[in-house]
């Protein structure tokens, strides 16, 4: 069927519009001709990597576009997509864009009420759900979603009794689409040709750390320009490369790489079998590049260090020696000093005998470049990964500028900066110290939120809300979110993120929130890493029952105190943490304490633990919290965990 559509000579006007390649669907039509039987997607199913060619990609998109037309979707309308990364998500998103629609990804782990609120706010008439889990959330909130007309479901498993009139299977959607296109064979290309680069392509949820999430409107031109400008400074990405798509479709980073760059370059995007098999599938593919938020790198680092702590004495010594060599080389390189030949030789030996096998274990051995985006990654992590020979680089940018405005250049990776602007991108720092940027990728505004738009967009410049500076080389230095900077009682300013990143650089601390606004000194609320501290406790014969119990064990508090002391020794006196508590629970997005990309929502945390914070600064020894717990059978109970407040004097 698609072959017909492609072979047919389109009318000259249509052909001219298609040749402009200014929208994603036009790019796809072009790629299906250009690449044809080359592999666009690979999805692991039934234990085997199943290949999907560019021609098949287009066929699915045609069917989905036809199906959405048959359902009555109009140009400029929104379809919300929720699910783990699967090719079907891409077919539907692209299918909607082919008929002038807008795709809007939502995070899979969003709670039902929040999800309903967002879908209703986006005015979506159509929702695509991957499976029963998401469908159940939507159906449970049905009365709050009067605008939703159709719910398209990819995996019908477990839903044999569902007879809801709004539900439609993905297969039926495609069948409807094929029917329609059989009747109107020219329809698909003429719809695609109607698209313009300035049409809105996606709504992207911004990870608002301070208030309710906002929907950023990005056009085809915004995204495609972003891809081209990024490629101009990272030209090595080739159609032969492999990429693994495992981060949420709703995240701008994933939209940038597996949607935008995929269309521009034509590499292969691989989808893991299930979220639980990501690590294994990632290693099987051995991707050539990756773009991930800090928590992924923090996770890999902590997995490696914990295994090393677990290893025998000899292996541990070898590990320490190898890491010392790596650290020396990285420090010299970062400082721009020459590395002596004997040290370089030692590093080479260590690379082949130690670092390379280690990288292979975690699937990073073929990786040419790994970008860190979203929240920044502490310098200690940079030393670690770069020391192993992984080309880890920082990316800086906002959803509102399609994700990327700065990246480290090869040979100039200074961990403390965010790199320099990509092609066609200007960065300035205002007199107040706010980082602002301008490029063809600056977004069109927030959907239905003119006030927020007016705050973010002024004279074509995007105001980031980040405080920073430019270093002499032109690299951008980020201090922190302007709203997050702490002003101590004596008026000195402290970026809490810097201190938190250093605290988190041990496998035992999962999250840290530094306090001190208007106070005489800094304090911290810490989350232990349950897995790693649990293992540590088991090795020492320290019994515990739950996270709550383990977090308050005196031995664990001693461990934390030692770690905080070590961090303090590396900080200037004004930035040292003088008191800390080990929180009885982990910060969690479901409790509004973290964003879905795992950044701290400081205001919510401060508000929620108001009394605890007061107790810390009132000089209390311990604090009793009141917690309401809901058990799985619906019963509720109230607990009163007592937290010890540890205080540190100068060493």
């Amino acid at each position, binding site marked *: 069927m698609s072959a017909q559509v492609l072979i047919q000579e389109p009318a000259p006007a249509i052909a001219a519009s298609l040749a402009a390649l200014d929208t994603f669907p036009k790019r796809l039509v072009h790629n299906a001709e250009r690449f044809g039987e080359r592999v666009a997607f690979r999805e692991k199913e039934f234990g085997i990597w199943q290949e999907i060619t560019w021609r098949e990609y287009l066929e699915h998109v045609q069917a989905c576009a036809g199906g959405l037309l048959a359902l009555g979707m109009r140009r400029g309308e929104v379809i919300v997509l929720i699910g783990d990364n699967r090719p079907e998500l891409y077919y539907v998103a692209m299918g909607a864009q082919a008929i002038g629609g807008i795709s809007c990804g939502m995070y899979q782990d969003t709670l039902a009420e929040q999800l309903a609120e967002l879908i209703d706010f986006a005015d979506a008439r159509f929702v695509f759900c991957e499976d029963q889990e998401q469908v159940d959330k939507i159906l449970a909130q049905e009365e709050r979603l009067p605008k939703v007309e159709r719910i398209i479901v990819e995996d019908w498993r477990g839903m044999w009794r569902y007879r809801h009139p709004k539900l439609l299977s993905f297969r039926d959607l495609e069948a409807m689409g094929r029917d329609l296109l059989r009747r109107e064979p020219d329809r698909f290309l003429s719809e695609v040709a109607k698209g313009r680069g300035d049409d809105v392509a996606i709504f992207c949820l911004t990870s608002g750390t301070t208030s309710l999430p906002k929907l950023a409107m990005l056009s085809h031109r915004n995204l495609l320009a972003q891809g081209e400008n990024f490629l101009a400074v990272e030209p090595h990405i080739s159609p032969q490369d492999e990429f693994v798509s495992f981060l949420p479709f709703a995240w701008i980073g994933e939209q940038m790489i597996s949607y935008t760059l995929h269309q521009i370059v034509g590499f292969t995007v691989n989808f893991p079998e299930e979220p*639980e098999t990501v690590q294994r599938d990632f290693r099987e593919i051995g991707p050539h590049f990756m773009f991930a938020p800090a928590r992924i790198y923090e996770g890999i680092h902590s997995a490696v260090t914990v295994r090393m702590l677990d290893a025998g004495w000899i292996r541990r010594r070898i590990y320490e020696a190898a890491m010392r060599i790596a650290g020396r080389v990285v420090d010299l390189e970062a400082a721009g000093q020459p590395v002596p030949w004997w040290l370089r030789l030692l590093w080479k030996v260590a690379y082949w005998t130690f670092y390379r096998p280690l990288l292979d274990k975690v699937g990073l051995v073929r990786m040419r470049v790994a970008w860190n985006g979203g929240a920044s990654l502490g310098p200690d992590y940079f030393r670690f990964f770069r020391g192993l020979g992984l080309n880890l680089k920082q990316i800086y940018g906002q959803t509102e500028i399609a994700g990327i405005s700065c990246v480290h250049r090869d040979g100039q990776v200074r961990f403390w900066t965010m790199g320099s602007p990509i092609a066609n991108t200007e960065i300035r720092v205002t007199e107040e110290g706010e980082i602002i940027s301008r490029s063809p990728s600056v977004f069109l505004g927030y959907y239905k939120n003119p006030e927020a738009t007016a705050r973010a967009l002024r004279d074509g410049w995007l105001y980031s809300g980040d405080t920073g500076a430019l270093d002499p080389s032109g690299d951008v230095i980020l201090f922190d979110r302007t709203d997050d900077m702490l002003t101590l009682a004596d008026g000195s300013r402290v970026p809490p993120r810097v201190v938190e990143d250093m605290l988190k650089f041990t496998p035992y601390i999962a999250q840290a929130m530094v306090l001190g606004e208007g106070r005489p000194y800094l304090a911290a609320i810490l989350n232990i890493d349950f897995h790693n501290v649990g293992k540590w406790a088991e090795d020492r014969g320290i019994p515990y029952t739950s996270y709550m119990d383990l977090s308050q064990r005196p031995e664990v508090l001693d461990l934390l105190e030692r770690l905080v002391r070590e961090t303090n020794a590396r900080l200037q006196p004004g930035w040292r943490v003088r008191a800390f508590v080990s929180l009885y629970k982990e910060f969690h997005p479901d409790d509004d304490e973290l964003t879905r990309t795992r950044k701290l929502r400081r205001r919510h945390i401060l508000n929620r633990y108001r009394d605890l914070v007061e107790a810390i600064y009132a000089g209390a020894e311990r604090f009793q919290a009141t917690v309401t717990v809901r058990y799985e059978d619906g019963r509720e109970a109230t607990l009163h965990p007592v937290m010890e407040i540890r205080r540190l004097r100068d060493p």
Partner: protein
Amino acid sequence: MGQEFPLVEAVLSVRGLTLRFAGVVAVDGLSFTLQAGELLGIIGPNGAGKTSVLNCINGFYHPQSGRITFMGHDITHMPPHRRASLGIARTFQNIALYPHMTVLANILSGRLIHMRRPLLQCGLYWGLAEREVLSHRKRVEEIIDFLEIEAYRDHRVAELPYGIQKKVELGRALAMEPRLLLLDEPMAGMTVEEKLDMARYILELREVRGLPMILIEHDMGVVMDLCDRLIAMDYGRKIAEGPPQEIQSHPDVIRAYLGEEHGLAEEVASGR
């Protein structure tokens, strides 16, 4: 369901089943039928003879008297492996997997009764044998997908948590492409979440595949929710039979449980 179509021939019919072990009567003149697509629960206090009934059906035990017919075959004296090839599969109360083999190999072992090629040809992995192996692997992968155990495919069974092992055991039984499935306490020792999963699989097997099943389970909430019909046993005898609501309030059932333990009686009565 069974009551609605009394004329349809039963999948399984048990008549006057009696099993004795040196004077102890484990099963005493038990009769029942199982209709197509039906989920039948057997409940009763410990030692009531529930597992013995399953062992008689799949041929582990040889009853002294009585007759068992399955899909029109008299299987009373048939050896277990012939019953298996007729399509009777089961899971065990205490997991009976090959602990040092992988999940994949364990489930694949359920396909053995469907292997057609001679040993030598399989060893050479050539031609028809290769195609056959691939088709078996495909069936196994569909089961792995169904049970959502992709992440454990290549793990050895002995290293896996109990709840996952239970799933693997169900997977092996399903690999036989059974026409009757006997489940002996499939949820014993599971967490609430694992039980919910298992209940979902059982329901889907009945609703989508119409697989007839006999379920022994101690969790009364599960039994009451899932089963179409219940048989209550005590001292090897059937003391009640009917839809779950009726059994729940049946005086003999309550007495049988009361005789043993108070808590259970309340559980039966409240359906928890």
